[in-house]
């Protein structure tokens, strides 16, 4: 089932938290709304659910205009960050609640509840109360309650953020598998870019209530349209170094880097992914820096180097060793270099 957001905006009094957001979510797609807190991502989700009124614009679900519809008539199910399990109802009653409200007969309700429960592997817990469950189990119950209705759209509001790191990784994989199997259109809100990259078919990155970029994870990683997107996505985030661009030459300190274009921007930024850089000897490479810290991560060593006021993170082999404050060079391929206008935040293309 498709979801179409047509130029929706939201204001709370004088404060505008969402600016003309337009999106089309395809049938069966897993779309992630990514953004920091206050970016308007949760508001957008709640507007799709019908929990917030739409100030301007139109929302369509399955080809039907639902802008003014009550939440219950939109055929959407939502998983909350807190799971929102009813504390005074058992797991079975929690899962069966949407069916009970729709006056489904008890027998049919039982079968359906049992079905979903086994899908999310909580068959044995049906008679327990939410307070007797672990975080992961609660998460599954919340998921089951959303699934049991077979809604047109799943809405998920940071469903994994209350789990510990290990469980989160596990549930992430399960969630992805489940969505693939059910094929239900899913809109997922998170502030965690790893979740967004791993789960999404497409990621919509929001900032300040505005859509920054809407693309597949690979594209958004490899081809960010703005400095903001580049720095938001990736772990560690993209390195940036400030300087100026003169006729296609980026000047930083005493180093001059040929970028291959012919643009001139007085306040420019270069961006480099950590894995695209190499540490080389002092005097070699394209940028001269001083080594600030080494951190052994496991399969690699993360080297932090300082260039003027900027810090660059570089993935070096795990046996890399260099003295602190020693001079090093940084080398990279010119194709892996990104250029941004620091005043507008826009990407400078070299074409």
């Amino acid at each position, binding site marked *: 089932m498709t979801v179409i957001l047509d130029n929706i905006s939201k204001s709370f009094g004088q404060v505008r938290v969402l600016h003309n957001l337009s999106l089309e979510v395809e049938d069966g797609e897993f779309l992630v709304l990514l953004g920091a807190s206050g970016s308007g991502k949760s508001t957008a989700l709640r507007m799709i659910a019908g929990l917030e009124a739409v100030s301007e614009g139109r929302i369509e679900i399955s080809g039907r205009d639902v802008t003014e519809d*009550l939440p219950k008539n939109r055929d959407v199910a939502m998983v909350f960050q807190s799971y929102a399990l009813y504390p005074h109802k058992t797991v079975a009653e929690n899962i069966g609640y949407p069916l009970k409200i729709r006056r489904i007969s008890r027998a049919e309700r039982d079968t359906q509840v049992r079905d979903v429960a086994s899908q999310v592997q909580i068959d044995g817990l049906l008679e327990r109360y939410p307070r007797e469950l672990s975080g992961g189990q609660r998460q599954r119950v919340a998921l089951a309650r959303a699934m049991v209705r077979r809604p047109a759209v799943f809405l998920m509001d940071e469903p994994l953020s209350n789990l510990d790191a290990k469980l989160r990784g596990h549930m992430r994989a399960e969630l992805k598998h489940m969505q693939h199997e059910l094929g239900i259109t899913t809109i997922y809100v998170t502030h965690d870019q790893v979740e967004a990259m791993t789960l999404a078919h497409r990621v919509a990155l929001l900032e300040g209530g505005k859509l920054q970029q809407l693309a597949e994870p690979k594209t958004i990683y490899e081809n960010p349209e703005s400095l903001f997107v580049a720095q938001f996505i990736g772990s560690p985030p993209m390195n940036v170094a400030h300087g100026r661009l003169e006729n296609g030459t980026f000047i930083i300190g005493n180093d001059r880097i040929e970028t291959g274009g012919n643009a001139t921007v007085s306040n420019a930024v270069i961006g480099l992914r950590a894995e695209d850089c190499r540490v080389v000897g002092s005097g070699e490479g394209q940028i001269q820096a001083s080594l600030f810290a080494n951190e052994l991560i496991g399969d690699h060593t993360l080297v932090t180097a300082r260039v003027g006021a900027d810090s660059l993170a570089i993935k070096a082999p795990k046996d890399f060793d260099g003295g602190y404050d020693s001079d090093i060079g940084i080398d990279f391929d010119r194709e892996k270099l990104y250029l941004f206008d620091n005043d507008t935040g826009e990407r400078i293309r070299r074409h």
Partner: protein
Amino acid sequence: MTNNMKTRPGHSRAAHSRGFVEWLDRNSRHIFLWPAVIMILIFSIFPLIASAIMALSRIRFRGGGYNVRFVWFQNFEKQLFGSEQFHFLGTFAGMSILGWLVAALTTVGIAVWIVSYIRSSFTVIGFVGRLITWGFTLGVGWMLAATLFSGHPFGTLGTTLFYVIVGCGIQFIIGLSLAFLCSLPIRGRGFFRVVFFVPLMITPIGVGYAFRMMADTTKGPFSPVWQWAGLKDFAWAADPWAARFFIMIGDSWQWIPFIFVVMLAALESVPRDYVEAAQVDGATGWEIFRDITWPQVVPVAATVLLIRVIEGFKIVDLPNIMTAGGPGIATESMTLHALFAWRSLDLGQSSAVAYLLLFVTVVTCVSFFNLVVLRRVRA
């Protein structure tokens, strides 16, 4: 997914039924709030207005019906300056030296307060509000100077204020002390807290009778004590102050538990960390209470006292049962005064007294709230 279609919302229900249910749902905000608001309007606000009209009228019952004549403030005049003055304010028959002294002291006190307020801060609303408080305090001060301190009886206003100010003060001190004792690490706290709570639940009428029995000098349980003290023939109900104190004791017996339970809960909700930190620093029990616990519970204490004062102004059952307002009018509260006026079918006077009570209550409570509760909470 065809087999799932029947579980979809909207498909299983007829369109028209959804229309009504949905209408109900969309308007639930009104359905939730309106009943309460309308009921309060009908049973409080309109009666309040009707009462105001009655207080400004003379109402005569005449052969089944009644006629209403608008007389402006005559009813209030009668209470404050006219033939009912002795009943409401008290008997004014010359001031004694003590009376003059008290009147002068009150006046000077208020004057000092006015000057210090104007010097420290000044807002129009704050000034007008305080003007009412000052006027009221001054009036009460002079009234007491001319009656109580000049050896003349005061009226129902004085009696009500006695019940409220002296009564609530005593109740607060005893209730707080008991709560403090029960918050100490002693055995049997559970027992005490249940026992001390009980009087609050007992019907005031029952309390009235029980204390009337208690105070009986011939048949009551303490009659041997009276006898021993040579007071066997002393009729407490015939002595104004004895009667007032007996009523106040009954009222306190009933209401101390209210202060007690709330203050105990407040004392127990003070975080243990603070107290333990002070204990480690070597503070004694009393110092801990004064410096740590008390500042934490002040907001609750002020609020609970305010609630108690609000309820205290409504006192009627005890004086009615224990003394029927006697001897004379010595124990008559303002509510009882209005009730008696209603009994004698003088609806105008009854409403006027009731309105005076409302005025006194509101002025006292709002002054208390603004000058004590808000300031304490902010501090």
